[in-house]
């Protein structure tokens, strides 16, 4: 019974119907007044909100995200160009493999000489650097 009455008052207030106190008994009028007060208070916006710096921080983050997205597209383009470059080199190697093979042959035959030469050059550079630092 009590629940039916409560449901009726809530339904009337939900549909924003004008409620006349006369329609209700003295006991129900207290409930009606309490509900009317509750409904109007629930509509009031809470004083608390997001801090003022919230929007600035958020927009900064969005700008960073946007920059990152444009950097990513740049990397994708560069990656694509590098891939095309490798494909071109691969094609050249395949097309001129006989010339390249004889070149590699020469390198392999002179492997000892190439290794000793590189080592000597590295040693000389090291000695030269130490000498320069002393003076």
């Amino acid at each position, binding site marked *: 019974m009590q629940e039916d009455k409560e449901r009726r008052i809530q339904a009337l207030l939900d549909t924003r119907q004008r409620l006349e106190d006369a329609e209700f008994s003295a006991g129900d009028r207290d409930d009606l007044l309490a*509900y009317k007060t509750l409904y109007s208070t629930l509509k009031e916006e809470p004083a608390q909100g997001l*801090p003022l710096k919230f929007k600035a921080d958020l927009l900064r983050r969005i700008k960073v995200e946007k920059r990152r997205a444009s950097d990513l597209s740049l990397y994708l383009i560069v990656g694509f160009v590098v891939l095309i470059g490798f494909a071109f080199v691969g094609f050249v190697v395949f097309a001129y493999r006989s010339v390249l093979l004889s070149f590699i042959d020469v390198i392999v035959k002179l492997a000892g000489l190439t290794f000793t030469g590189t080592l000597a050059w590295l040693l000389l550079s090291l000695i030269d650097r130490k000498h320069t630092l002393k003076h």
Partner: protein
Amino acid sequence: MMNEKEIILRIIKGDVKAFSLLVDDYQKLIFHVAKRMIQNDEDVEDVCQEVFIKIYRNIGNFAFKSKLSTWIAKITYLASIDYLKKHKRHLSEELPENLPDDLTDSQTPEDLLEQKDMSQYLNLLIGTLPAPYRLVITLFHLEEFSIQEIESITGMPEGTVKNHLFRARKLLKEKVKQYLKNEHARR
């Protein structure tokens, strides 16, 4: 003055100024929903930022089949649920028989009553309700969403939404009634 569709199209093209307008229009809605679900201020701010980032990334998927506010409220609701799950907070759905008289806050309900700040008093009381009840009350009364819109935001069946609204309002009404009675006696 840009309309909502124009704002959305400009955001899709990457216009940050248009996004700033959207932030102005919807930050209260997002804050109210997240605050009701999470309650802790610092966490709420983080969730609000995550929600806006999600909106920025996914606004191209908005199909104009619902109001933008409904779509945004749904994203906020889901982000809040994710946050609560991630931080292992229990989402109680059980409504207490009575609302407490002594609430732990810097101001007690009695202080607030003396200041005649019914709004703050009610907010404290709403804070003691389980999350789904808090959310439904906020969406319906503060944000003025319809029952069907709340159903679409939360995924709760219409009957559950109505029941949550009825029971939460009934409990809150008892406290308001008590307050009004005390006020009357004081005069």
